[in-house]
């Protein structure tokens, strides 16, 4: 084997080894949706074309958050056959916060704590069948939580 070929092979094998554990996660993680700084690009990367406003998405979040580093958000979907719930903060540097997929007896309900850079709408998008539903709640942020 020529030295150059050997080195190429060695480099390739090392790179494959190094990337393997991250790749397994990378395939499941929607990089385009999470890394974009634009809300409409995040939603289109999630495959969302049209959203229907819905009061059947219940959002429990504070009206005012003292500290934007920790804002507790509770989301419950009363929409039949809810498959996913996405949480977006319109004015965050990267708007998409989380994307939850429910299956096998999981209630379309989640409580989590998020970072908010400034006062913004917290936008929820629910997928049910081939339709997407949305609701939003404004949260006033007194001290920003992004660094």
């Amino acid at each position, binding site marked *: 084997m020529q030295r150059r070929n050997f080195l190429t092979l060695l480099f390739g094998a090392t790179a494959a080894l190094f990337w393997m554990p991250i790749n397994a*996660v990378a395939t*499941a*993680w929607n990089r385009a949706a999470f890394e974009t700084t634009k809300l409409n690009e995040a939603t289109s990367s999630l495959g969302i074309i049209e959203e229907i406003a819905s009061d059947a998405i219940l959002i429990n979040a504070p009206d005012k958050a003292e500290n934007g580093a920790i804002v507790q958000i509770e989301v419950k979907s009363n929409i039949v056959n809810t498959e996913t719930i996405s949480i977006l903060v319109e004015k965050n540097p990267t708007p998409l916060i*989380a994307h939850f997929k*429910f*299956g096998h007896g*999981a*209630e379309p309900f989640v409580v989590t704590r998020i970072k908010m850079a400034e006062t913004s709408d917290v936008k929820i998008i629910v997928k049910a069948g081939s339709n997407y539903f949305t609701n939003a709640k404004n949260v006033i942020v007194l001290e920003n*939580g992004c660094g």
Partner: protein
Amino acid sequence: MASDNMKMRAQLKGAVTEVKVLMSHPMETGRRKDDGDRLIPAHFVQLLTATLNGEPVLEAQWGTGISKNPYLTFRLYGAKVGDIIAVTWHDNLGETATQQIIVS
């Protein structure tokens, strides 16, 4: 990673099991600077999965906007006392942690 990375509780209330998870993770955005004005590299949980007796029930993709030391509550139908719920996370640096709890 140490098994004390996650604190979990799973309680059956009527027909619903409520699972609460508190994880230990820095959740660095990659935009924060240290005292020396150097950017702290992004370090955040990207994927979280939960199973009930080995069957997947919840899959979450997260960005950098989840707060430090992530907190999560989710609810399951059809779980019984003694069932096993497991939660696993993977972060962007290839680190991972798993914790399981018995429904009480």
